[in-house]
């Protein structure tokens, strides 16, 4: 019993220490960004911090829908970058931001593990029940866009799993646990373990990424500077290098 109590005390102390450490020095800009922006924003963070050494950018990367909920529930964030306009619109409607601006666009691709174990050749293969098919859940943009693309192609996918965000889907494709999925072109570009197959040329899905400074930003200046940096020549160059197009 005493041993267990001691362990509990250690755990508690660890939690308390880890949650309040490291925020005392300098300014912080907390950026909530869609998980498809993971690589691009990690590079932008580094570039921004070397341009503004006094500011520490903290990235909170998750599915856009998770981030939206966190913001609507009052998370102390400064900037929100979403993977679709509907999610951003919900944040604008709630008065958590006043304006947003599109800073990048993306396209979708069919993704398969490098050795293509399911011998996938096109979007029609997603209807094959013998293949392990993964999509993003309907609640996140990559899932909504993928369903738009499937609908436009007239394919009813035989889905085996609806992943919570695009990173989780990419990870399972990389691990070879799924035969095929629909992800962003940028995800295919940044991974050495999956390869992309083009969607039908008739596919008309626009993936636009809006960014906004949040109304309740604790660090207004930092938030504004970060948004400006993303829109600057340098920020756009980083986005382009990670596969995004300029709006």
């Amino acid at each position: 019993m005493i041993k267990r109590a001691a362990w509990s005390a250690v755990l508690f102390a660890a939690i308390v220490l880890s949650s309040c450490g490291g925020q005392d020095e300098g300014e912080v800009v907390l950026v909530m960004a869609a998980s498809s922006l993971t690589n691009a924003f990690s590079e932008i963070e580094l570039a921004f911090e070397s341009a503004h050494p006094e500011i520490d950018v903290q990235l909170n990367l998750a599915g856009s829908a998770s981030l939206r909920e966190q913001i609507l529930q009052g998370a102390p964030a400064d900037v929100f970058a979403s993977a679709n306009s509907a999610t951003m619109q919900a944040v604008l409607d709630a008065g958590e931001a006043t304006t947003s601006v599109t800073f990048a666009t993306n396209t979708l691709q069919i993704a398969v593990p490098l050795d293509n174990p399911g011998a996938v050749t096109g979007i029609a293969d997603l209807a094959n029940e013998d293949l392990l098919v993964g999509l993003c859940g309907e609640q996140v943009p990559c899932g909504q866009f993928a369903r738009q693309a499937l609908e436009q192609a007239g394919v009813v996918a035989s889905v085996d799993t609806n992943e919570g965000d695009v990173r989780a889907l990419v990870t399972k494709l990389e691990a070879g646990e799924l035969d095929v999925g629909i992800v962003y072109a940028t995800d295919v570009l940044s991974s050495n373990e999956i390869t992309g197959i083009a969607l039908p040329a008739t596919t008309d899905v626009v993936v636009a990424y809006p960014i906004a400074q949040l109304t309740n930003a604790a660090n207004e200046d930092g938030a504004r500077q970060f948004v400006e940096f993303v829109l600057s020549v340098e920020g756009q160059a980083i986005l382009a290098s990670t596969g995004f197009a300029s709006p």
Partner: protein
Amino acid sequence: MTSRRIRQRAPWQLLVLGAIGAAVFVLPLIGLATRTPWSRLGELVTSDVVVDALRLSLITSLLAAAISLVLGVPLAWVLARVDFPGRSVVRAIVTLPMVLPPVVGGAALLFALGRRGVVGEPLNDATGFLLPFSIGGVVIANVFVAMPFLVVTVEAALRNLDGRHEAAAATLGASRLTVFRRITLPMIGPSVRAGLVLAWARALGEFGATVTFAGNLQGRTQTLPLAVFVALEQDRDTAVAISLVLVAVSLAVLLLLRDRWWSTGGDT
């Protein structure tokens, strides 16, 4: 533990800290209740998504608890009674899932039992059998996170057990297996049941390992916690309603079993 009772006023320091401690658990429940769409509750909890998830959650958590019982009690006995080299390492590994983020456990399961995993790949080549993205995967993920609770509870009971009855049975000619079955098991019964309830409760609430290893598909692998996660980002009323179902089921079982089983001793 003796049941000796000392009638004395409780020290106020303990009462205050205890009350704050209890508030940690009560407050979130109040928060949940304030967001509950009570008038639409019946309609929400009988939706397809919720019914599918509830059924799947009950089946997989009960199966996981049963497997944990069948494998966990012998494992606890071995850890408590057999002195083998590396025992403390094995014991640490067995309890690791209690500390590990479940997502890490799920990923580790995928690397071991997935289609490209060390065990999963030969298994799949030989039989075509696949655990990820199946109900079997959910059960395995549940066992992985839940069984340690049973093992820890039962092992502690075994080590605290007074060995005289077992020794007496052995001198009367009972085999070791008979001693285990007829003497040891009944004596540690309360702890086994407590461990079983803990393991079941942990399995019912399992999220991270399940979503990582077994994926998320309504009717096949989407348990209640996964349904809550998806609904939270889509339709908060449904999410709150599912959460309430989860709270109600868990609370009912814990109340029922705690009174009946845990008060009879078997304390660790």
